[in-house]
């Protein structure tokens, strides 16, 4: 019975996404529509779309499951995921928008005046997006096998098909129309079952027998290094995620981008109340055998049961599927945006071809790889972003002396170190202790190292003095409020 309800609920989400895509097709006509929705997205709508895109499978399915034995991890993950938008607001949002860039690669080229820097940003953005999208596909496989009664490979295939249809039809314009409602679908899909579950528990006067205490292990304490490093990765990594950054390029101006970031903070923070509530219920009612990633899906059936439980499970599954669609479509648009300009040509046709290739490649990778725990996989993506894109972006925004060679050297070092750490951590079967912490959470040592490398190489670079004037003009442009004429504008044109 759950399967039929789940098909119906997920079908509604798919129809909504497709309708939004078709609507976007009727509106989106220019290249600017496809890349940045013609920079006309208002703060509330944009904040909802960012919330829809950012709160991925790890947030909807993974966080609540961590309450079964890793409350400390769950707490820091929620703080880090949300706090990343504070960092973005403080250091990135308005200057990035005022640069008039379409993508992070455009920003790199305008700031560093270098194709090599642009290519490095493009490669890092693609790696981040691919690493981020694969766990979404794994989440789709999980939902498909659990509630739809189909083989696991069908989930990623379904997500890829819907995402391709939405993105190809209208690019950023279409997915903006789809992602904003998807945030509210996610909230509703967790809130409605939660209200029903709490009502059922209250009506039974707390006499519902707890299955068995679901803790899979005692709440283990983490080392201070682990905690700080995780926070560094999440706070800085979130502010460097290319699919989030590109959404701030859709704001009308810098001040609106700041307002959008503050609203996202509010929306994302409010959302995390729901996984906390599920986690609390899960610790009491889930049962020992429950996998952390499936806690949210099994809880309604465990507490409510019967047909109502099936309907509630279907609603939760629809929310999870909505998260997968929203995040995946944002990632595909970002990959298409950066790749099309460098490979296929910066027009609508090139954008569509790049989107198609990106969808096919990420689907292929997802089908041939195994699923690690969702929050683990996404954690490494944040460390990668914090060690590559974020330092080069922020130092480019705030420092006059950073050069393209410095940025490239730092990004390559950061990428190499984070990838090596992640590979070693998995290859050594997740070692523990100090060495394990250094490999599992590399951002704590890679980010300071990357910043030092960027500053040192830039200082040694003879071009740092010769390009000082043009760099200063660019910085004037991105830090000056828009209503004023920019005296010596040298940045990109809208």
């Amino acid at each position, binding site marked *: 019975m759950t399967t039929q309800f789940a098909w119906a609920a997920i079908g509604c989400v798919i129809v909504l996404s497709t309708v939004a895509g078709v609507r976007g097709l009727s509106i989106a006509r220019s290249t600017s529509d496809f890349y940045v929705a013609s920079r006309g997205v208002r703060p509330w709508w944009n904040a909802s779309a960012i919330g829809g895109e950012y709160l991925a499978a790890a947030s909807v399915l993974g966080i609540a499951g961590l309450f079964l034995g890793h409350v400390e991890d769950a707490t820091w993950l929620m703080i880090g995921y949300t706090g990343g938008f504070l960092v973005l607001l403080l250091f990135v949002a308005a200057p990035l928008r005022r640069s008039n860039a379409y993508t992070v690669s455009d920003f790199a080229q305008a700031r560093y005046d270098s194709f090599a820097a642009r290519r490095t940003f493009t490669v890092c953005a693609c790696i981040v997006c691919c690493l981020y999208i694969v766990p979404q596909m794994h989440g789709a496989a999980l939902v498909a096998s659990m509630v739809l009664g189909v083989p696991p490979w069908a989930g990623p295939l379904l997500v890829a098909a819907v995402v391709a249809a939405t993105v190809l039809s209208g690019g950023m314009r279409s997915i903006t129309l789809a992602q904003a409602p998807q945030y509210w679908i996610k909230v509703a899909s967790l809130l409605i079952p939660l209200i029903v579950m709490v009502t059922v528990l209250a009506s039974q006067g707390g006499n519902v027998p707890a299955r068995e205490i679901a803790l899979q292990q005692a709440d283990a304490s983490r080392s201070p290094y682990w905690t700080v490093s995780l*926070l560094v990765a999440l706070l800085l990594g979130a502010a460097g995620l290319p699919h989030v950054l590109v959404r701030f390029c859709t704001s009308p101006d810098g001040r609106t981008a700041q307002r959008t970031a503050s609203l996202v*903070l509010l929306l994302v923070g409010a959302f995390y109340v729901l996984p906390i509530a599920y986690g609390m219920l899960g610790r009491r009612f889930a049962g020992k055998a429950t996998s952390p990633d499936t806690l949210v899906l099994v809880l309604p059936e465990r507490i409510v049961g019967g047909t109502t439980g099936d309907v509630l499970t279907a609603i939760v599954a629809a929310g999870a599927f909505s998260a997968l669609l929203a995040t995946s479509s944002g990632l595909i648009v970002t990959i298409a945006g950066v790749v099309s300009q460098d490979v296929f040509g910066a027009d609508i046709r090139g954008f569509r071809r790049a989107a198609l290739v990106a969808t096919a490649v990420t689907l292929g990778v997802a089908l041939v790889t195994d699923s690690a725990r969702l929050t683990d996989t996404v954690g490494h993506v944040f460390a990668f972003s914090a060690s590559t894109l974020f330092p080069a972006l922020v130092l480019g925004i705030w420092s006059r002396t950073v050069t393209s060679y410095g940025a490239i050297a730092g990004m390559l070092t950061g990428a190499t170190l984070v990838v090596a750490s992640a590979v070693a951590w998995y290859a050594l079967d997740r070692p523990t202790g100090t060495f394990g912490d250094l490999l599992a959470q590399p951002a704590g040592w890679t980010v300071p190292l990357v910043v030092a490398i960027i500053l040192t190489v830039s200082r040694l670079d003879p071009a740092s003095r010769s390009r000082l004037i043009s760099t200063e003009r660019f910085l004037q442009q991105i830090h000056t409020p828009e209503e004023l004429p920019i005296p010596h504008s040298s940045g990109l044109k809208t």
Partner: protein
Amino acid sequence: MKEPDGDATGSRPVRVRVTAPSTRSASDLSALVRAQSIREEELDRDRCRRLVRQRLRLALVCAGSFAAAILAAATATSFFAAAVDPLPIHWLVLCAVAFAAMLGSASWFIHASNALDERFSRQRDGDGP
């Protein structure tokens, strides 16, 4: 042929001597304008630099305040670790404090950043110090 500028009385029109300004004075004027333009440019650049510095300082102070709030809350909750079955409640308190600190820092930054922009605009328009 009639004199085009003559009047009805037939008197000759007043001759106006039109001479081109001397090359020397033109170059003086050009240099003056150029110097003024350069001065304005430098003034603009100085104002922009000051704006960037002030905004960076503001962003760092906001980020530092957020970090301090998190650190304080984490330290405090570790001393008062308490569990209300089935959840260790001190983690929830930490979450709530962190969220409040984020929102507080964000609103402070936006308010102060807008004030910086407005002051910059006034200075550029010549109304301010």
